[in-house]
């Protein structure tokens, strides 16, 4: 086989791996709860594909090929590890299944897997890393960079979480109606966390942040495909798409940071805004509103500037007031203060900031950035300089730091 043929086979494997990874892991692990073995089995299958496909050609149904190979490897792995008697029914199950549905369509268990990853029994800081690894196949080292922990530590935490899934009796199922809102919220939260990290880490030079935001949008799309009637799922996707639409406008020449208010709205991506709006409209028509729809609505008002040339702060403020009632996080309250300042003047905004407990904001950079901005607008120069210093000192992104240093003067 010549070089280019080999290359196209590699690309084919990559594509199948990308599209099928989560489905295969979900399917293999939903019957056994053994996510780690499912992943190992699948990576063995991918290695086998890399060996076999360049010579034999890409099979007609590559997914089924991978599933067969992974299942075989899975049985070997479990047998080899001689995991307690409890695994015997598992083996039996796998053997039976093997005969039945090798080439046929296999069920999409990714939704169950997403709910398992964000299960309340799993430490909430591990929800997002688990999803990125099990559903998208990201390796521990890359996840570790994004979450600012060492690769070794992230690897250990992932292993621990998977052991808990296997041994802790966590069921692979879509939650009952009664607990669905809360359980779904954890899934949405974890996807949004991936997006937020990718968003913040997009420092221009490093592409990994950007990719993580794209992975999060991909996850959002997968979830929507699996739960098309959940309004908040659409709300989250709309929110992420609205932010994504502005990516190009966020950085100037030489990676300079440009705040939303100064962005050239004609640089925003119109197709993404339109898509976001379609999802938001669809979500709102379903009549069950929630946090992500409200956040998307706020972004929708910002997006309106591309058409009208102005920002309707009164509308943004209304949405923030609703948002605070259902999600009074530090981020929401800081955003609310900024909206109050725009709608009613910096003094009113400052009063909202003052109402936040000082103990909770000592490490929260956006609070200090907004505070500095408002104090500066009020001409309180020494206090503003002090707040700027706190915001600069807490900033991670060098471009943001540079921007604030210039503002501070």
């Amino acid at each position, binding site marked *: 086989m010549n070089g280019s043929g080999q290359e196209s086979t590699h690309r084919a494997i990559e594509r199948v791996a990308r599209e099928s990874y989560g489905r295969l892991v979900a399917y293999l692990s939903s019957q056994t709860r053994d996510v780690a073995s499912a992943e190992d089995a699948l990576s063995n299958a991918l290695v086998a594909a890399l060996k076999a496909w360049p010579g034999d050609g890409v099979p007609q149904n590559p997914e089924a090929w991978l599933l067969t190979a992974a299942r075989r490897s899975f049985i070997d792995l479990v047998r080899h590890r001689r995991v307690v008697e409890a695994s015997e029914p598992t083996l039996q199950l796998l053997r039976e299944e093997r005969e039945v549905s090798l080439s046929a369509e296999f069920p999409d268990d990714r939704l169950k897997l997403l709910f398992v990853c964000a299960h309340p029994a799993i430490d*909430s800081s591990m929800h997002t890393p688990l999803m990125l690894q099990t559903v998208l196949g990201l390796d521990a080292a890359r996840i570790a960079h994004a*979450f600012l922990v060492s690769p070794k530590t992230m690897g250990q935490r992932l292993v621990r979480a998977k052991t808990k899934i296997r041994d802790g009796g966590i069921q692979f199922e879509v939650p009952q109606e009664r607990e669905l809102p809360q359980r779904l919220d954890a899934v949405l939260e974890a996807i949004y966390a991936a997006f937020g990290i990718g968003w913040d880490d997009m420092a221009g030079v490093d592409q990994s942040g950007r990719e993580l935001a794209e992975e999060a949008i991909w996850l959002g799309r997968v979830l929507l495909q699996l739960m098309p009637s959940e309004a908040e799922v659409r709300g989250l996707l709309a929110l992420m798409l609205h932010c994504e639409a502005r990516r190009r406008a966020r950085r100037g020449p030489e990676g300079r940071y440009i705040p939303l208010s100064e962005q050239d709205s004609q640089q925003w991506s119109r197709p993404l805004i339109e898509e976001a709006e379609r999802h938001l409209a669809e979500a709102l028509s379903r*009549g069950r509103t929630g946090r992500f729809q409200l956040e998307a609505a706020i972004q*929708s008002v910002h997006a*309106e500037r591309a*058409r*009208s040339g102005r920002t309707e702060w009164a*509308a943004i403020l209304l949405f923030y007031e609703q948002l605070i009632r*259902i999600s009074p996080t530090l981020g929401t309250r800081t955003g609310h203060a900024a909206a109050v300042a725009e709608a009613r003047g910096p003094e009113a905004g400052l009063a909202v900031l003052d109402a936040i407990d000082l*103990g909770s904001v000592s490490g929260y950079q956006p609070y200090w950035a907004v505070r500095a901005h408002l104090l500066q607008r009020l001409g309180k120069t020494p206090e503003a300089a002090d707040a700027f210093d706190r915001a600069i000192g807490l900033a991670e992104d060098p471009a943001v730091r540079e921007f604030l240093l210039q503002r501070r003067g």
Partner: protein
Amino acid sequence: MPTDRYLDADIPQFACACLKFLEISQNLSKWPIPTRHTFKRAKALKIVPLGEILMQFALLIYELPEAFAARKSDGTDSYTGAWRAYHKALVESGSYLAGDPLEVPETGTTLRLKEGKRLVQDGPFADTKEQLGGFIIMELPSLDAALDWAARCPTAATGAVEVRPLAPAAKHRIT
């Protein structure tokens, strides 16, 4: 993308956001108020409960020759400004114990005793591009929290910051 097309676009965005507002406010009152607090890195906001075990960490700051050279500036450059702000944030965090910059590497003198003979060498111990330029000692609940502080350090973008726990057990053996 032509601007006029954008202006004529039949995007329902603003109307959608506002017209639905009434509906939203009616629906919201039916919703339970969740108390979960969220933030992209929950650990950064974690409030340390009294009695939680704190560990001491050293943040070792490795700088490039250019960063050492910048110390001769008049102090209005952005690197120095960023450090000034970072130091303030450190001190106000309540987790800062100590810290100091070191003089430039060329001022170092390295000593070894080999087979009873003294070997004195001009310059730092290791001949690398990035050299130890200072240190910070902090008391924090976890390595995660220490890494958060390392990420905010202005030198993380130009040189490197190594986070190392202090070793109280090793100290205990000799005291």
